[in-house]
């Protein structure tokens, strides 16, 4: 090979390496950017008067007098819509039965669309589910609903070989010649008068509990549940992990038994997370019966087992990084081994141990699989501290799955899902960031 080719290969080799790191960074961006931008939309958005109504009646928050004037002004514009609807109803009553049959389903669709947009019509019975008590609370959703009102979604099946294609048909055309035709342009033009959008900062998303399984309200029960589970896991795993690490580093001699212990540790680190969940179910709940069924304590114990190897490894590394001279100095001053460990080695290793602990805390907060069978429920209110031994809890990680995959209105509450993902990711990343900062501090300190 001539030198030029060798150099070319060298350069391409370098660029492959750099390229793969760039791809990793890009992947991180691609994942994080939509989560952050859409997640912030759960707190910062353009809210409608319906949102304010909901806040007042569900959470008793907001200025009721101001809201009343807003409602009065929006009702003035809405009244015309209701008028047009009842006008068409009476017009329809006067039609021949065939034409009535033709218009009734179409009119039903229009009525549902108006209900979705503006909330229950005057004279409707009080809805059972909270989600039907209000119109659209978010402006961008209202615009989607407006589209549903103006256009009918149809499928084009004309070509039998291709997949059917979606297209939109103007609804006003199907009501041509009736009084309802006027409704569509009216609603389109007076949307903002009827819904009074304004920029809203809804901090309650973090501190409120949810209403009607996350259609409205916030994610406090999930945040609290995640907190309980992760902290509970740390309470078990941290002391145990540090003690085990002390044993491994200070006492264990290289023998068969100790190498078995080490193997056990790395085996535990490699167990798939879902298997921890099964073990938690089979052992903590079905065998030990720490609780009747799922509970925070069972989930915490399961998570504790999962993060134990990480804590042990981090603590071991931190203890090994303590300079030998510290140990020797302490021993030479007449300190016992116990004393040396407790007063010299552990304090010196503490920042490193804490770094491992913080990262494990993040891992415990973010894991889903171990708590599916042991602690998590889909819907629930925040539980008290006394209930951790008996009752399950909603948790961010589980509810992200649940809302995105199993919720009956999953596509309607994307903003809640994104908000939850952002909350979870920021908790975990903040914990990791603090660990990184902590570690940088330590290495600076060790370098002097």
């Amino acid at each position, binding site marked *: 090979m001539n030198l030029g080719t060798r150099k070319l290969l060298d350069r391409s080799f370098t660029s492959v390496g750099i390229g793969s790191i760039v791809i990793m960074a890009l*992947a991180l961006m691609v994942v994080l950017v939509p989560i952050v931008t859409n997640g912030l939309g759960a707190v910062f958005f353009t809210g409608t008067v319906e949102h304010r109504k909901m806040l007042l009646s569900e959470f008793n928050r907001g200025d009721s007098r101001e809201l009343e004037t807003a409602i009065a002004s929006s009702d003035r514009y809405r009244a015309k819509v209701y008028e047009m609807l009842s006008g068409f109803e009476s017009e329809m009553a006067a039609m021949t039965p065939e034409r009535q049959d033709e218009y009734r389903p179409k009119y039903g669709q229009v009525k549902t669309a108006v209900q979705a947009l503006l909330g229950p019509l005057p004279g409707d019975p009080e809805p059972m589910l909270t989600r039907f008590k209000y119109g659209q609370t978010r402006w961008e959703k209202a615009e989607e609903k407006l589209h549903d009102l103006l256009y009918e979604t149809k499928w084009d099946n004309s070509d039998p070989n291709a997949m059917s294609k979606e297209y939109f048909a103007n609804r006003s055309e199907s009501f041509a010649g009736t009084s309802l035709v006027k409704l569509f342009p009216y609603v389109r033009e007076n949307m903002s008068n009827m819904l009074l959008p304004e920029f809203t900062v809804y901090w309650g998303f973090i501190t409120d509990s949810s209403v009607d399984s996350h259609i409205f309200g916030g994610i406090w029960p999930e945040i609290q549940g995640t907190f309980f589970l992760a902290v509970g896991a740390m309470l078990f795993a941290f002391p145990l992990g540090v003690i085990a690490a002390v044993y491994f580093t200070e006492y264990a001699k290289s023998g068969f038994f100790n190498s078995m212990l080490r193997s*056990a540790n790395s085996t535990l680190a490699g167990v798939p997370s879902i298997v921890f969940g099964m073990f938690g179910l089979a052992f903590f709940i079905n065998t030990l019966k720490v609780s009747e069924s799922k509970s925070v304590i069972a989930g915490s114990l399961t998570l504790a087992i999962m993060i134990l190897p990480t804590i042990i490894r981090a603590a071991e590394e931190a203890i090994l990084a303590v300079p030998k001279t510290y140990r020797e100095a302490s021993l030479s001053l007449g300190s016992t081994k116990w004393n040396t460990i407790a007063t010299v080695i552990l304090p010196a290793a503490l920042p490193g141990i804490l770094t491992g602990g913080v990262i494990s805390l993040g891992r415990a907060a973010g894991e889903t699989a171990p708590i599916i069978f042991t602690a998590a429920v889909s819907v629930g209110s925040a539980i008290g501290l006394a209930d951790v031994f008996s009752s399950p809890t909603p948790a961010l990680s*589980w509810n992200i799955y649940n809302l995105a995959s199993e919720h009956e209105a999953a596509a309607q509450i994307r903003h809640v899902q994104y908000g939850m993902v952002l909350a979870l990711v920021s908790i975990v990343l903040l914990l990791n960031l603090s660990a990184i900062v902590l570690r940088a501090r330590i290495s600076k300190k060790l370098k002097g």
Partner: protein
Amino acid sequence: MAEESCGEGNRTNTFVVSSRKRTIQKAVNRAGELLLLALASFVAVVVLFIFYFVARDAVPFFELRSFSEFFTTSEWYPADEPGKFGALSIIYGSLMVTLGSAMIAVPMGIAAAICLSDILPFSIRQYAKPVIEMLAAIPSVAFGFFALVVFAPLLQDKGGALLMWAWWILAAPFTVLFVIVLSDLLTTRIKDPARRKQLNLLSVLLFGLLSAGLLYRVGTLLHAIEILTGTNALNVSIILSFMALPTIVSVSEDALQAVGRDIREGSYALGATRAETIVKTILPAASSGILAAVILGIMRSLGETMVVWMASGNSAHIPEPWFNYLEAIRTLTATIAGDMGEADQVTGSARYHVLFAMGLLLLVISFICNLVSERIVVRQRRILSGQ
């Protein structure tokens, strides 16, 4: 030894204590050490318990049903009466996404590890490391949510175009390189420099045209592909590969760092380029450590639950043809997660126990992988220390 007595004149040496006191002291220390040992052994106890309790609930399945049904049939209808518990398609699905993610993550991970250990200057490495740590820290459910809500629709709507672009971006540079190297190798024996240059140019042109045509043809073929569902094996493989990457990168980087600086210098001093040094000396020397990294990364993909549960489509069948990554599949972990909710109402049924059989399978695979990778790391350390 001249001791200055401080009141306790009856003892000459203050460090000599009575034998009783010494015995007690020793016993206390010993007891403390044993207590520590007991607490440290907790890890081993937990591992044994995990095996025991998962196996305990898995064995009844094989008593109720049979090994052959589980491993050789692929009809998965657990809710039927009587249920069918053929897990072959599910095991296959697990293997498929694991392999798929490994195909992406292994080359990328090793390249990135080399880059971190040998290529990037320290100032840039400082920023690359947190990227990898963050990638490792993002919870799996967040990746799953991304796969389901962002990536799957994208793949479904623009799949063909995405595939084509990925093909062009990945294949084009490698093809150019391949053509140049090939031409160089073909003409390397020709002695006359002018003639060699001519022939080299000719060969570059010839092969260049040929491969450009091939690239374009495959590109258009890929562009024409219509992806029916975005929640498929490809989606999951890509996302899983990014979750396995941090493990592969950090463990391989450790292995590469373990190959000493002096060996690198030895190679450079003989006139090797950086790529040659890495490929011919460092990679072979670190190969077993890198293999361990790959095994650990694969284990991460195999054991991952949330991403596959949310974005694999959860359809228990072997794709047609068997390598079709654009079809929905179902994996062991997702099956356990998804079916346990219905099954644990009826503990004792085959439907409950079959999930533990799957768990046991996962556990055994991960245990074996772990043992193997541990062995490998030990062996590498021994080889590098020259024994």
